[in-house]
């Protein structure tokens, strides 16, 4: 049958068929992607040039929202607080994740399952559950952690009401909640290191520290870089824990960018200006995602 057709047509007909079939497979995702991602992104850009309320049309105001952004005290503060939160979480959670992974990976059998489950279980809990638990554990009057805090500070501390304590404690709760994820990635990475390396090093008389410095650290570095970038992007989007633990207080000292989007668009009904703040966050995250992609690519992982 193929001989009856010219070679070019023979190639083209199945190609068209294949393209049609591919379209059928791709369509559901592609349509959802267009409607629920591309369109909202374009709409966000358009809204940012208007003074629209949350629902309904507004007037074109040019760059006014952007100019306002630069003068907006609470916005600038919320950017600063977001950066502060990122600084408090990203590096500590990465190092802690590695430390715990090193501790877990040398265990085996049921011991390992139990220890890993203890570290991982918080990660699969809803954020509201996590914050309710910690509000109770840290409660000033009845919290079981207060005697511990008294040991350090002399008196009890209402951690989410104190400007000095609030953000570090939100970061602490976040690390407790999400650290299991990093532990898993590190364990996966550690298991990819061939055991022979350690055996050889041990024969050469290398101690535990030397083994870590010369074998583990260089070989685990790609995973470390991956965890760092994932955490960086994740923590920039902080909202839930802040909203549930401090509401941005005390005296706005924990106000963050996503909360500011929520406040402008939903509480104050300033859809246009809220969109401008959102676009700012969007641009930052896209920039960091590109960075992450580079990290992934240099790692040469399929």
């Amino acid at each position, binding site marked *: 049958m193929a001989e009856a057709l010219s070679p070019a047509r023979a190639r083209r007909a199945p190609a068209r068929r294949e393209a049609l079939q591919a379209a059928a497979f*791709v369509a559901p995702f592609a349509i959802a992607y267009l409607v629920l991602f591309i369109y909202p992104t374009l709409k966000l850009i358009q809204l940012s040039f208007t003074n629209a309320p949350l629902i309904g049309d507004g007037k074109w105001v040019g760059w006014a929202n952007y100019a306002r952004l630069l003068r907006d005290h609470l916005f600038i503060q919320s950017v600063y607080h977001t950066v502060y939160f990122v600084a408090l979480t990203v590096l500590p959670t990465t190092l802690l994740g590695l430390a715990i992974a090193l501790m877990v990976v040398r265990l085996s059998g049921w011991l390992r399952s139990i220890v890993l489950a203890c570290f991982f279980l918080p990660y699969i809990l809803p954020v509201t559950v996590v914050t309710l638990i910690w509000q109770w554990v840290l409660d000033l009057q009845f919290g079981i952690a207060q005697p511990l805090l008294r040991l350090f500070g002399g008196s009890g501390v209402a951690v989410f009401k104190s400007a000095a304590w609030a953000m570090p404690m939100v970061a602490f709760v976040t690390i407790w909640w999400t650290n299991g994820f990093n532990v898993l990635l590190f364990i996966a990475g550690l298991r990819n290191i061939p055991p022979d390396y350690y055996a050889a090093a041990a024969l050469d008389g290398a101690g535990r520290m030397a083994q870590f410095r010369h074998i583990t650290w260089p070989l685990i570095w790609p995973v470390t870089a991956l965890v760092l970038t994932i955490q960086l992007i994740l923590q920039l989007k902080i909202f839930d824990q802040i909203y549930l633990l401090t509401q941005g207080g005390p005296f706005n000292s924990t106000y963050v960018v996503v909360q500011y989007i929520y406040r402008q668009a939903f509480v104050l009904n300033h859809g246009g200006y809220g969109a401008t703040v959102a676009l700012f966050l969007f641009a930052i995250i896209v920039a960091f995602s590109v960075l992450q992609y580079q990290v992934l690519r240099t790692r040469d992982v399929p």
Partner: protein
Amino acid sequence: MTRWRRPDELLLTLLALLSAGLWAFPLYWAVVTTLKPEYEVVAPGIRLWPQTFTFGAYAYVLANTNIARWYLNSFATAGAVTVLVIGMSAGCGYAISQLRFPLRRLLFGLILASFMVPLQALIVTHFVLMNDFGLINSWGGVVLPQLIVPVVVIVYKQFFDSIPREFREAALMDGASELRLFTQVFLPMNWGVTTALAIITFIGAWNAFLWPFLVASTDRAMTVTVGIVQVHDSFGVQYARNLAGAVMAAMPVALAYLIFQRRVTEAIALSAGIKG
């Protein structure tokens, strides 16, 4: 075990056990609190086990909130998100991996670029869009914006890539259609991946806070994750009740994890691009 004989090894193991216990202690403490009567909860001193054992806090939550309705909403929306995300992404990943079509590279490039879609930045326009669709305060409104999970497409593409061409060619020779090839050859080969991704997608949708919190304001569509803090008592002594609600909200995902422990850990390594 021989290596336990070395004292530093034993010490490290004990350290691991101790820190794991400390790490999980807040979970234990929360559960124990829910089993005490409220007056014992605020009584002075630390009691690691209830003096008076009671399910009163649970009974109160069941009787005074619509938690059954929230459960239904959570199961329906998280279930729908899971089925749709897996279905759409597997199909798309299959086409990108196995079929040749125009714009294929562009599509995959876009998906890679939106690896970490900042849904938080799109809350304003998602709300506007869901209002245009008339879906505010409905299951559909909760579900739709959660459907964009590009990483699932990427994982599927990688797995389909790793299946040798011979399988495909042999099946095509037998006259199998693409749909049959996809549903009866490629998907079954990756059943483990699909279950792992499905479980983690379900947990993610069950746990989602910001979007369901914005779009659902009444019991009609409110999920249990949002419900336990939205409609909580702002008045009265209430610690045990609050935590009882929390325990009930966490139960399904905690059980899912404990049952499918291995699958969950596998899925996390997969979605980050590391093979465990």
